[in-house]
């Protein structure tokens, strides 16, 4: 009778401890999921900012503002070819 009572108490304690542990695991998982989602969002934001800054049109605009100009076209006569209709 005593043994059964001891086993019952032990099981109860184990269940109590495990339930607490698993509950905290769940919290950790939720935290991780939140972090993942936050990082994804930040990543998207950074990707968007980089893309806006280094797009060809914005680089061209900055180049022009900085005083860069297009190189002169080569002479047409140098490489003449003939075409018909």
């Amino acid at each position, binding site marked *: 009778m005593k043994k059964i009572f001891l086993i019952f108490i032990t099981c109860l304690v184990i269940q109590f401890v495990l339930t607490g542990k698993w509950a905290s695991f769940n919290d950790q998982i939720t935290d991780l999921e939140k972090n993942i989602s936050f990082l994804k969002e930040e990543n998207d934001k950074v990707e968007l900012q980089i893309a806006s800054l280094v797009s*060809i049109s914005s680089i061209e605009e900055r180049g022009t503002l900085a005083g860069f100009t297009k190189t002169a076209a080569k002479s047409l006569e140098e490489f003449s070819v003939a075409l018909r209709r």
Partner: protein
Amino acid sequence: MSRRIKILRIILLLSFLTIIGKLFFWQVIDSERLKTLANLQYQISREIPADRGKIYSSDNFPLVLNNKNYLVYVNPQILKIPLADLAKALKPFLKDSEINPDKSLDKKVQWMPLMKNLTEEEKKQIEELKIEGLGFEESKIRFYPESSMSAQLLGFVGENAESGRKGYFGLEGYYENELKGKNGLRSFNQDALGRPIPFLENIEEKSIPGRDLYLNIDRSIQYSAEKHLKEGLAKYGASSGSIIIMNPKNGAIVAMACLPSFDPRKYSKEDPELYKNPLISSVFEPGSIFKVIVMASAIDVGAIKTTDKCPLCSGPRSISNYLIKTWNEKYYPNSTIEDIIVHSDNVGMVYVAEKLGTEKFYESLKKFGFGEFTKVDLQGEINAGLKDKKNWQEIDLATASFGQGIAVTPIQILTAISAIASKGEVYQPQVVGKIFDSKQIIPIKPIKKANPISRTTAEVMTEMLVQAVEKGEAKWAKPKGYKIAGKTGTAQIPIKGHYDPEKTIASFVGFAPANDPKFSMLVILNEPKTSSWGSETAAPLWFEIAADIFRIWKIAPVY
């Protein structure tokens, strides 16, 4: 007394049994229905919109991203300031929508939209105003880092009848199922007034983001094509124009430029006609560039040999009461087959088509893919169709030999001519190279569609097209040291049963380097005003873009 107690006992027992029975009915038999009813009363569900897939160019640069966007709403039950004051406070943020300060607020509703399309920055500024009763709803809209670059190719995301987002035209339309993802579902409890109770939210189903598309489009070449096209339209006074560049060895679309274009961010304010991509959604009579297909077919089936001479090229030809002349009314008796292409000789082409015959001509067109969809992965492709073989008259064969009286789409003609560059093989044009999601990469393999001509014929035709570029009268700049194969075209525009005497469609199609083609390109200019000829408008534009491609792809000159 005992009888009355007995009756009372029976009544109590029956009452108890009735309660037990009713409880059993509610909790076991009718439980599901009641549970649903209860949930509907205190629980509400909302969709979690899935992030739409992004679109990247071949250098992994994003062409289409998603940007956070906010809608501002007011809860009239909580708002404490008059509407006029609210309108004044929000005035700096108003774009298209306007708040009417004279309008009275309906106090029965809890949600009334005020403004949409606000940025995160604007949202923060409004929050700082600390106006009680204002709320925000987050959504995502498409963001285009390269602005309206390749607008017709990308398409746009609009709203459908159910106020849901949906892709229309181009890639957004064609890959709607891949891009849209799967919306999730969250549920939360609400109070008696229908307001959500915080901390009682439950995500029932997570949203699955849409797949990302990685294109074959080379961003630098796309930019160059659009820039040169814009300059070309201004320089030659053309009403519109389009350029398509393809890798002939696998059908990958490298660039696709069309002007005039539209801004996909403001699509609703643009002319809907501009949504269409003319390279896949419009037909034209190709003119002289079609001679390449006819000549290749005739050589391939053995109807003519490269050593043959044209016995009927000394003057105009009369066919079914129509007089067929050359473009400049110059005639070259005993022209060689190569001369016919080099001189772009209409009379010579009639001779070639007659040797080929209607039956073989028709079969050959089919093999090159005319009369059917190219199956390019863009929404909106049309099929020009071919006239029934039985209805072909002598004059139809004659005019088709130099590209008149036959309608094609630009993508059909480039796909067909690319077969010469790829030693006789026709590939399905493809814009998307890879499809990505969080779990897998799906590569899109090249699809070989047909083998309309032999390798030998392709080599002969390549040499002929190189000569067409090298020899002749009109002088234009070609990048030095490169062998380029190409053909000019000047097509007339049919109007009400005849051809417009002044307006033309100028074009140039070709590929380079001729010995090992890395790209094939078609340039079309509609109604150029400085000159009606393709040689004086579309061809120089073609060479300018080709020079950029040689530089960008580091293709070295060979002589």
